[in-house]
């Protein structure tokens, strides 16, 4: 069983109103010095068998089409563990 972890974040130039709301709340709750909060998504895939190059390429493909929208988001495959 392998695990693949993918992070998806809005591109820096896209307004993130949820992040802004969280930023305001953190400041109200007394955390000083917060200059920016961006809210993203994490996908954790549990995969049977081995994640070889072919499978990883397939995961990249789907991370860039289904899991993220390249018009507004970037993705990073943060972790691949066997």
């Amino acid at each position: 069983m392998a695990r693949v972890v993918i992070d998806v974040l809005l591109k820096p130039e896209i307004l993130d109103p949820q992040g802004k709301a969280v930023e305001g709340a953190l400041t109200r709750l007394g955390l000083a010095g917060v200059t920016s909060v961006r809210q993203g998504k994490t996908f954790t895939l549990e995969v049977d068998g081995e994640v070889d190059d072919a499978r990883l390429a397939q995961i990249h493909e789907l991370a860039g089409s289904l899991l993220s929208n390249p018009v507004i988001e970037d993705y990073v495959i943060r972790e691949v563990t066997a």
Partner: protein
Amino acid sequence: MRVGIVTFPGSLDDRDAARAVRIAGCQAVELWHGDADLHAVDAVVLPGGFSYGDYLRCGAIARFAPVMGPLIDAANGGLPVLGICNGFQVLCESHLLPGALVRNDSLHFICRDQRLRIESASTVWTSEYEVGQEIVVPLKNGEGGYVADEATLDLLEGDGRVVARYLEVNPNGSRRDIAGISNARGNVVGLMPHPEHAVEALTGPTTDGLGFFTSILKGLVDA
């Protein structure tokens, strides 16, 4: 004239869209998301709602539904397609239209009667309007902020592909007050407000929305 209306799991406005199509004098044909067949319709409406619960991103899962395969091919071949609200989101996710729709800048779900200005009468869905005509139709969305990079926005403006713009107030932070756009050919239109809810005096604030559905009739008859 047969106009297909696609129902996805979570579609909400498919019945109103079908009703608008009938009031405009066309035959409404129900299309099912899981059926990869357009049943020889002459045009398609992707209705509003919350397909797949808006999970992942609005329209992102619907975009891969079986019916979308033939629909994307047909749209690229010139089939008239109107995406309203969630349908607009599906069209952007399908890359039939550029850009994307993101969370309203206010973070609030907005529901109001919205004044719009028609900016293009040269699409198959807006030929019954005059450029500059002002209309009022319902708007109801949580993720209606239209975004695209500056080059894309300039291209849309330069090519006359901004179909409608918000007047009086920008309800969701859309770039350049954009409420609707078309593809280069003018057969695919995405619109965030809801013309299908403004086709009858009894149930709508106006009947200003009917023109979208009568335009298609005119376009096909002329062709």
